[in-house]
């Protein structure tokens, strides 16, 4: 279905609820791809590897989701022209903190998809990507000096 958000009136999960949630993940992944540009720019050149790898991972996830949406005749949400940072990113610690925000935001979108999906294959993808996001988040929380570095319930 093209356009609007579709939630079954009786609360049941169907392709409409799943498609809407898939598009929420696409929106989150667009933002993460954009945000990691800022993360990388704020890091010393020799410390940019994890940011670059994360950007690639999010770009790949987004492209996979876009293809999935297009294959079912839905319109993938486009990226925004720009985004507002939640705080100034002026240091390596700021950059790591922003990366945590990006990964936690994407995680919330993946969990929302788990909640709304109708197809087991979609949930398999979601739980795999959710785990990958949390692994990246652990690295960034460590760099940001956050304790604990883990989250019992990523995305919830």
């Amino acid at each position: 279905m093209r356009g609007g958000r579709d939630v079954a009136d009786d609360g049941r999960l169907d392709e409409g609820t799943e498609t809407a949630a898939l598009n929420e993940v696409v929106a989150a992944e667009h933002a993460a791809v954009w945000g990691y540009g800022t993360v990388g720019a704020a890091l010393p050149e020799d410390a940019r590897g994890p940011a670059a790898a994360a950007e690639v991972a999010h770009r790949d996830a987004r492209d996979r989701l876009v293809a999935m949406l297009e294959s079912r005749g839905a319109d993938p949400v486009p990226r925004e022209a720009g985004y507002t940072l939640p705080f100034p990113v002026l240091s390596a610690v700021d950059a790591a903190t922003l990366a945590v925000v990006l990964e936690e935001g994407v995680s919330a979108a993946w969990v929302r998809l788990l909640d709304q999906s109708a197809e087991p294959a979609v949930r398999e993808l979601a739980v795999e990507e959710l785990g990958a996001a949390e692994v990246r988040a652990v690295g960034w929380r460590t760099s940001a000096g956050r304790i604990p570095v883990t989250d019992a319930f990523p995305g919830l």
Partner: protein
Amino acid sequence: MPPVLAPATAGSTRRAFLAASAGLALLVAGCTAGSPETPAVSTEEADRLAGQVAVQEAVVAAYAAATTADPALALSDLAAQATEQLDRLRAAASSSTASPATSSSAPPAAPAGGDVRTWLREQVATAASAHARACARQTGARAALLGSIAAGLRGHEAALA
């Protein structure tokens, strides 16, 4: 749900995003088989969820065994999170139609004199994979909870690396 970062042209904020996420957390915490807004839980799904309680009990037991075997590992934060996960799973399982499973298997034993950290990491990885598989076969809030716990344990794996 607003995106991760607010669009530059919109008024939404990260706070709004987190508020939306919190709403999902409440949904998960309050999910019951009898809620009119949620799909009915099949007996098969309820049994599977109860089965994951036993998986998580093994994780909690593994943290306890590892702490006993090597107190220097300083596992208190991770162990506490594993217990939180178990508590949430038990609550979700008890709200389903099946009785929660009771673990009859012996608690795991950390290798005496061996690499306790690596052993613990393997236990956690096994549980994360089991939760992930179960997540794919659940629906709605139960899938969200299991997926989140599976991801949380992936994070534990990373922290233990």
